[in-house]
């Protein structure tokens, strides 16, 4: 039996996802599926301008419109602003500039889509009709949208307190040592890169319902969040001043987040606040165009980087200077993305001994920018892998060999990088070899010749990457400016007849936790997976939680469950010892049974649970009844997944179309619980990486500040025919500091893939003399690059 569990539903088994039945049959319960008695519907009037003074708002006609319950503007809002969860200090020691971020604008609007007024009405249509009657007198000013220009003299200022739009001017690493490394370099490779702004596009748009119970004074917020406890903490403590005990936050089924649903958004605070004012529930669901305008965007870096090499191609030093767009306000985790989730990874998988990085975070009149799948690490990996590739081209070294030559050796772990992190484990040689083999790297020239005969340019590209996830040791992040701890909480409730409810502070919004965690607990407690239910997403059910992001759910949330299971097993041993009249030291837990060592006397978990809840024969003076344990797990270090991605493309030189024809991901993510879910995560991440490399890019009009890519008519999401069959390989080295050995997989696909794709495109275009291309490498851009190279060759 236990062996069956291990092979069919335990750790390492391809268990079909328990949650998929309800998702695939339309039986999920998303925030918009929830309706509260007496609820009103909210419509948010948003700024049509990127930058303007609000001279006057007249909402009198709207207030008198049919069905309208209330209209609120910035003048009505008396509570706090949305806080930033991370504080960065500039080079000179000064704290970052934190402008106020009220959920309704008071005197100015700072990006298209900024919240100007909230209308609550009996129906959504009435709320929207009434919003059209609100008269807002704007005095438009000139916006700044491009991060590359935001700190230039004469640029429009977003905040008076942020001179030259600088939020912070931060650095990391040893500048003197890096300068010295460059001084002795045989070769220096330089590159300028843009990591373009992306719009997350979760399938489910954001939604929020605020509810207020007049009888108890309790507030409830139903919201599309990746971390309901964090929202309760931020909104309760900082924004609305509601004590935790009076505030329940529920994040039910959530249809994708990719980071964009981590943050505390204005709408969450507004519906909760308004529900208290009108003493009726207030429901808001974003329209897709609102998602484009107001979900936190991702990336948006402009960088210059230089790599110093010795005559043999060994990396001596790395210098990086990056401007990072924050948008108009500071979103919850925005300040830490281009710093501690970016610059700290600049060693990559290489032994570069000296690294120095400067990051200037800048405000612009655009939507906020925050974590989006990978968050900082894709930007870092793209920079490194484009730079290394260019160095190989310039020095004439083989693209694979230059990487291999600079890899951190397998016996060098734990490895201290010059940019703060200590990698616990890894084997970059094995994932490289695996990827080369799986992708038939050696056979590429023949495929290239075949493509040429068909009029196509074929290219192959590689990226060897690392990332830091399993976020994060609280003490470490605290010292770096985090205003919260980043542990996780898990509870195991063994019911009287032996079934188990698992409460996790992690949150599943597509990841499959209900299956992965059930596998973990099923194997850990030796019970059937059908007897394990996973509960998450409700602050009134789960003791506490920091949520799901940064590929942390298994490494941190799963580890908390292991700790809780350890406690359950320890207590069960005591109960078993009593029932079996043996000493605790002689009880062994194995194959789902508590056995007296060397005998056939044993009790199952179910028998022990029954005894714990019906304690007639029970060590009642030594042990409490019941069988439920909670554990908090604070990781000792980040985890460091890594690997090699290989991409093969064909370019149509007449049209500029790039088709990804092969993609191989060989990753080291530590212990795998469910290989099928892991492969799905890699597939999705690679699809997003292909999206960034070839298709997606948010564009704001530089003069008006209007979002030009405000719908799917112009913002190009990857479709099935843009994504090839993806080969996924796995070579695990175990994480050394968590009980599972797992490292995390949620983000690796999106981190490793973009440079592999672009390096492949540049490899394909190399015969034409094309040396650079910016993401997304759309057909138009590829065609332009080909024309420019042709002109240059003439």
């Amino acid at each position, binding site marked *: 039996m236990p062996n069956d569990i291990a092979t069919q539903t335990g750790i390492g088994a391809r268990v079909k996802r328990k949650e998929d039945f309800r998702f695939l049959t339309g039986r999920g319960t998303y925030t918009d599926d929830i309706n509260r008695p007496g609820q009103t519907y909210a419509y948010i009037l948003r700024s049509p301008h990127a930058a303007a003074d609000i001279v006057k708002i007249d909402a009198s006609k709207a207030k008198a419109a049919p069905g309208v319950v209330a209209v609120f503007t910035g003048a009505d809002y008396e509570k706090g602003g949305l806080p930033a969860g991370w504080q960065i200090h500039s080079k000179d020691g000064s704290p970052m500039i934190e402008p106020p971020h009220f959920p309704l604008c008071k005197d100015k609007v700072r990006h298209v889509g900024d919240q100007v007024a909230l209308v609550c009405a009996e129906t959504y249509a009435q709320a929207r009709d009434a919003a059209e009657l609100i008269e807002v007198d704007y005095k438009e000013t000139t916006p700044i949208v491009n991060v590359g220009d935001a700190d230039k003299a004469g640029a429009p200022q977003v905040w008076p307190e942020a001179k030259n739009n600088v939020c912070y001017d931060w650095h990391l690493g040893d500048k003197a040592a890096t300068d010295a490394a460059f001084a002795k370099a045989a070769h220096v490779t330089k590159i300028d890169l843009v990591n373009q702004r992306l719009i997350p596009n979760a399938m489910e748009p954001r939604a929020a319902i605020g509810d207020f119970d007049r009888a108890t004074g309790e507030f409830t917020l139903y919201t599309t969040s990746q971390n309901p406890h964090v929202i309760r903490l931020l909104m309760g403590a900082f924004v609305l001043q509601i004590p935790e005990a009076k505030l329940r936050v529920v994040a039910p089924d959530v249809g994708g987040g990719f980071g964009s649903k981590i943050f505390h958004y204005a709408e969450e605070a507004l519906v909760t606040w308004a529900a208290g004012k009108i003493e009726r529930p207030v429901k808001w669901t974003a329209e897709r165009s609102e998602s484009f305008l107001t979900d936190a965007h991702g990336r948006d870096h402009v960088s210059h980087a230089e790599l110093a090499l010795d005559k043999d191609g060994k990396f001596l030093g790395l210098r990086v200077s990056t401007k990072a767009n924050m948008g108009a306000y500071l979103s919850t985790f925005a300040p830490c993305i281009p710093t501690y989730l970016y610059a700290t990874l600049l060693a990559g998988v290489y032994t570069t001994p000296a690294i120095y990085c400067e990051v200037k975070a800048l405000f612009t009149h655009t939507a906020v920018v925050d974590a989006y799948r990978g968050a900082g690490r894709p930007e870092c990996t793209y920079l490194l892998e484009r730079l290394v590739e260019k160095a190989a081209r310039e020095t004439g070294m083989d693209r694979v060999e230059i990487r291999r030559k600079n890899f951190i050796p397998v016996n060098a772990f734990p490895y201290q990088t010059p940019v703060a992190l200590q990698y616990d484990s890894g084997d970059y040689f094995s994932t490289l070899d695996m990827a080369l083999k799986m992708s038939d790297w050696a056979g590429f020239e023949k495929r290239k010749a075949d493509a040429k005969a068909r009029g196509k340019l074929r290219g192959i590209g590689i990226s060897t990457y690392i990332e830091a996830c399993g976020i994060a040791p609280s003490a470490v992040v605290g010292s770096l400016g985090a205003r919260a701890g980043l542990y996780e909480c898990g509870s195991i409730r063994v019911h009287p007849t032996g079934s188990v409810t698992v409460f996790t502070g992690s949150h599943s919004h597509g990841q499959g936790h209900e299956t992965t965690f059930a596998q973990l607990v099923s194997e850990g407690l030796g019970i059937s997976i059908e007897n394990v239910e996973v509960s998450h997403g409700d602050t009134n059910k789960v003791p506490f939680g920091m949520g799901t992001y940064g590929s942390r759910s298994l490494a941190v949330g799963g580890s908390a469950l292991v700790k809780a299971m350890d406690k359950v097993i320890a207590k069960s041993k005591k109960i078993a010892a009593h029932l079996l009249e043996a000493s605790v030291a002689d009880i062994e837990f194995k194959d789902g049974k508590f056995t007296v060592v060397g005998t056939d006397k044993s009790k199952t978990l179910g028998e022990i649970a029954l005894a714990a809840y019906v304690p007639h024969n029970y060590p009642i003076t030594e042990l409490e009844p019941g069988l439920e344990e909670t554990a908090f797990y604070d990781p000792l270090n980040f985890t460091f997944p890594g690997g090699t991605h290989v991409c093969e493309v064909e370019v149509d030189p007449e049209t500029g179309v790039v088709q990804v024809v092969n993609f191989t991901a060989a990753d080291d993510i530590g212990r795998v619980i469910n290989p099928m879910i892991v492969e799905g995560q890699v597939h999705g991440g690679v699809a997003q990486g292909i999206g960034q490399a070839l298709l997606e890019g948010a*564009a704001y009009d530089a003069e008006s500040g209007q979002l030009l890519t405000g719908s799917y008519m*112009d913002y190009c999401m990857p479709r099935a025919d843009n994504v090839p069959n993806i080969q996924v390989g796995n070579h695990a080295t175990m994480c050394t500091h968590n009980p599972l050995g797992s490292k995390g997989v949620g983000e690796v696909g999106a981190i490793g893939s973009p440079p592999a794709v672009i390096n492949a495109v540049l490899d394909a275009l190399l015969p034409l003399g094309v040396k650079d291309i910016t993401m997304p490498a*759309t057909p138009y851009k590829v065609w332009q690059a080909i024309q420019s190279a042709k002109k240059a060759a003439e």
Partner: protein
Amino acid sequence: MHDFAYHRPSSVADAVKALGSASDGKLLAGGQSLLPTLRQRLAEPSDVIDLGAIAELKGIKVEGDGITIGATTTHAEVAASADVKKTIPALAVLAGGIGDRQVRHRGTIGGSLANNDPAADYPAAVLGLGATIRTNKREIKADDYFKGLFETALGDGEIITAVHFPKPEKAGYMKFEQPASRFCLVGVFVAKTKAGLRVAVTGAGPCVFRSKELEAALGSNFTADAAKAVKLKADGLNSDLHGSPEYRAALISVMAARAAAAAG
């Protein structure tokens, strides 16, 4: 969307009457452009007159040596029609490539032509084949029908009833899709017809147009290479995030070449 009065007449005459008595009436043929516009509150018609219940507007029939397609025939019906596939295979290919599956089962040929979106597919076939647009009032030659950006020769109270396509000697259609919307960035329909060689280009300009340069080149030598050798001017072509006029000009020749190759 805002409120409007909804009508579902069962004859063209009733539809015309309803349109005439509305202060700002809109015809609903398939709704694939109108409904998103209404939902975004970009249009506020007083009345919407749904043509979906008018039997005389539906259906595909062989007429003479050509094909006549009723105005409310869906793209999916055209794509699947054995008569269309046999008589003008390129037209079936074009219809089968419009939008996505849902759009093809809702969108109609009459709706597409009345809307005359600059990036729509059907205008290329209608102009390329020298089709005739039939309305409740008259017949309009394709060369006289397309007037500009979202502009046609249709007058007030005029409703498209059918489109007649003469059978060409051979024809081909190839489009280059705008990556995000997958509308035509450039679509080229080439046809060898009794009236001569015709090349119609959609997506590239503010309105579908004929390319005299490509017609001359393909007229004397109906091959991909002949089309590819034509270097078109970019003047007057569209410019947006997805392509400059120069890019579109280059794509017209490439798509014409591929359309000629597809025509066989």
